[in-house]
Every structure is written in structure tokens, then in C-alpha cells.
């Protein structure tokens, strides 16, 4: 164990700089919470050390004779010191938490990019508001954020309680059916992060994740412009065949804008080929993974509401080819 303990410590700390960690803040809100965490850690750590030191001290004095009056005086002084310590500690924590709360809401009055996110068992519907209009651009399971700008996410749920959590960017907040919760995100560091549902919501709760990309505003605008477009027309015959099969078997639940497929029950697939993962972070995106998912969604994500639809091998291949091309 002795030799293993440094290894263990490294193993534990290795998780601290990951793309899903509140200890590696990459945005204003996460930074605020991280500071509050450090403050609470410091206060509680000091209290812990003082208590342990007092305990050790009193154990070492065991059995030593002292006159009663002296002991009473010592006890009084000790009580006063403890009282002051408690008041001080609690005051620091209350002030710290008050300031942190204010910082979290500092951007609330400002204009922000609005994104509506709806939790479904077990995936995320994501809609971007087109500046100042009532039009929304829909996508799923992948959130892009412009760096240095505030994005206001409006959270709701279509079925049970979920919780929106991108720890590197902000704290978590529940998505409650019949209620709209609001969270401001101001990311400061570009890169890929991982979001995860933070409230147990059924069998595949653990597979209800999403990718988050923080990028430069210009890059973000280009991405959003691509997302707002209709699906790219299919060029080849295999793709045409895939599109026809899709329209027949999948369109009840999935939309591909610009085609006849207009189902709204499942994720919008207009640009599915451009996503990084499939089925809310369950598997990495690739042409083969798409085909695997279509063939056996229940094997990859048991319990998912996407049915296993038996397709002839040539049809399945064509559909996967078609979807991979939707970029």
C-alpha cells in the first residue's frame, strides 16, 4: 500500500483536469463556483486542523495536575476563542456564497444568445434562437458556444426531471417538466467539453450526455449557419436509396429538413453526420457506428425509445451511408 499510495493519489488527481470536471473551470460561472469551493475547503480545512490540534494537545496534557481556578479560566478563554472562530468562519462562508450568487446572476440583465434545451429520455433537443426572431434552429446532443459571449440556456423537460450539467462551464440546474429554468454560460476557454445529465432519469441516465464545443465567435457563427441550412442534396444512388428507405421507416420520429422526413419525436438528423457522437454521447460517430446503432439500438443503449427496425442489409447500408453524408 505504501508504494501504491502515490499512484493512487495520481489516479485520483488525474481526473481533475478532464473535459468533465468542476476543478478545471473554463468559464465565468464555473470559475465563481470553483473559488467558492476553494474558500469552503480552506475554512473547513482550518477548522479541521484546529480541532485535531486541540485534541492532540489535550491528550498530551492528560493527567497533568492543575488547580481548578486556572482550569476554569483556561476553559473560559477557550470558549470565547471558539465562539469567535465560529462566527468568523460562518461570516466568511455566508459573504463568499452571497458574492458567488451575485456573480452567477451578473449577466442576467444583459442581452445573450438564447438556446432552448429540452431533456428527453435519454437525449437533448437543442434549439438556437435566430437573433430577435421567433425562429429556432434545431439540432441535438451537441452544444456549441461562442467563446467570451454569454449564452442563456432555457431549460425544460419533456418527460421526467433531468439536470443540465457542463461542469467545466457552469454549475448544474434541474430540468423540470412544466417549468422553465434559466442558466447563463460565459465560457472563456475554447475546446471540447462534456455535459452529462445530473439527475437520475431512468435506465439510460448514464448514457444521457452531450458534447460541448466552445469556439471562437466567427467559427461559431459559421457552424450555426451550417446548422440552419436544409440537408445537403444527396449525390449518389446509394444515398438516394438510403433517403427513400429513411423516408419510409424512420420519418415518423426523425426530421431531416429539406426532405419529407418531419417526425419530431426523436433527434433532428438534418446534420447528424457532423456530430461527434451518436445517441447522446453513447458511441463515437462514424459511418460504421451509425450502421451499428440503426441495426441494434437496444444492444447499445438498452431501453432506448428508438426501436430496432429490421432492415435488409442493403437498406441498412444505404441508410447509414445517407446519414453519414448529412453534414
Amino acid at each position, binding site marked *: 500500500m505504501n508504494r501504491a499510495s502515490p499512484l493512487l493519489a495520481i489516479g485520483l488527481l488525474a481526473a481533475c483536469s478532464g473535459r468533465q470536471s468542476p476543478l478545471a473551470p473554463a468559464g465565468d460561472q464555473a470559475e465563481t463556483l470553483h473559488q467558492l469551493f476553494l474558500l469552503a475547503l480552506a475554512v473547513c480545512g482550518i477548522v479541521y486542523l484546529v480541532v485535531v490540534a486541540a485534541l492532540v494537545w489535550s491528550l498530551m496534557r492528560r493527567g497533568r495536575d492543575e488547580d481548578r481556578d486556572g482550569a476554569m479560566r483556561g476553559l473560559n478563554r477557550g470558549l470565547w476563542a471558539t465562539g469567535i472562530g465560529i462566527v468568523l468562519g460562518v461570516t466568511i462562508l455566508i459573504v463568499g456564497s452571497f458574492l458567488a450568487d451575485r456573480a452567477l446572476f451578473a449577466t442576467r440583465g444583459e442581452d445573450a444568445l438564447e438556446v432552448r434545451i*429540452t431533456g428527453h429520455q435519454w437525449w437533448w433537443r437543442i434549439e438556437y434562437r435566430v437573433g430577435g426572431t421567433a425562429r429556432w434552429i434545431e439540432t441535438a446532443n451537441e452544444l456549441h458556444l461562442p467563446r467570451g459571449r454569454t449564452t442563456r440556456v432555457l431549460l*425544460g423537460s419533456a418527460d421526467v426531471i433531468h439536470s443540465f450539467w457542463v461542469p467545466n462551464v457552469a454549475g448544474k440546474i434541474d430540468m423540470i417538466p*412544466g417549468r422553465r429554468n434559466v442558466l447563463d454560460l460565459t465560457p472563456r476557454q475554447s475546446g471540447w467539453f462534456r455535459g452529462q445529465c445530473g439527475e437520475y432519469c431512468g435506465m439510460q441516465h448514464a448514457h444521457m450526455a452531450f458534447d460541448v464545443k466552445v469556439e471562437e465567435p466567427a467559427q461559431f457563427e459559421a457552424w450555426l449557419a451550417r446548422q440552419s441550412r436544409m440537408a445537403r442534396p444527396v449525390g449518389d444512388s446509394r444515398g438516394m436509396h438510403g433517403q427513400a428507405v429513411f423516408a419510409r*421507416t424512420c420519418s415518423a420520429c426523425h426530421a431531416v429538413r429539406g426532405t419529407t422526413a418531419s*417526425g419530431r*419525436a426523436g433527434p433532428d438528423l438534418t446534420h447528424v453526420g457532423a456530430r461527434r457522437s451518436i445517441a447522446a454521447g453513447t458511441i463515437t460517430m462514424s459511418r460504421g457506428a451509425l450502421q451499428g446503432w440503426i441495426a441494434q439500438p437496444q444492444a447499445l443503449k438498452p431501453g432506448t*425509445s428508438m426501436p430496432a*427496425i429490421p432492415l435488409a442489409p442493403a437498406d441498412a447500408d444505404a441508410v447509414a451511408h445517407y446519414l453519414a453524408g448529412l453534414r
Partner: protein
Amino acid sequence: MKPGGILVLLAACLAACSNEARTIGPAMPQTLPSGDADPRIGAYQENAYQVSQGRRYFAWYGCSQCHAEGGPADRDLTDGKWRHGGGFAQVYASVASGHPEQDFVRRIAIEQLWQITAYVRDLPTHTAEKRYRLLVDQKGEAQGSSWNGPQ
């Protein structure tokens, strides 16, 4: 509360525990019901989870657009009077092949048809309170190709 009362309450709570028990994965039916005595029927009709999935798909595949009060077809499925028979296999056939224009046989996978059938056959047992409750619960889900959000 008396100890006897607590025991009864506990028993009532635990009685519901197996209501959703089910196997997941390849045990799912891949074939039509063979008749009203098909041994797989109980696993769907008596299972709260399968019935509730059936309700979900009922909305997703657009059944509620014609089969809700005031829908274009307005064929009431809740009155317990079946024109084409109320047995499992009969209702399955009404759903799958009774709507030639919608071509549900080809558009809906077999296991989903089982779930939808179980839900449709469960409808006549719903009280007014339960109907209201389900309506509220499913407000956030898609109905056919329309989705208006949870609010």
C-alpha cells in the same frame, strides 16, 4: 397508525414492485401474436412499462391525431366496444392492417406494435382522472410530426 395498518400499507407498496419488471434485449417479440392465447401477451398487457411505452408510440406515430376526441376520424377507442374485435390479436390486426393508407405494418416495428396494442386495449380501463393525468404527463412529447415543447 396501528402496526397492522402500516403492514397493509407496506404490502400495498411492495405489490407494485414487479409491475414494470421486464427483460431487455433479444427476448422481444419479432413475430405477430399467434392468437389471443399467445403466451407472450401477458408480458405486454400486464406490464406497466410496456403499456406506457405503448402510449408514447401511440402519440409519436400520430394515432392520437385521429383517435383523440375531436380528431379527424374521431373513432373512440376508449368505450370498450370494438368493431373489429377486442382480443389482443384482433386489435393488433386492426392497428397494423386496419389503416391501409397509413401502412403501419411497414412503418412500425413489431415490438412497438405489441406495445401499442397493449396500450390501446388498456384505454377502456382508464378513469377520467387517469386520462387527465396522462394528458398532462405527455404534454411535452411529440404528436406525430408536431412538437410544441413542454410549456
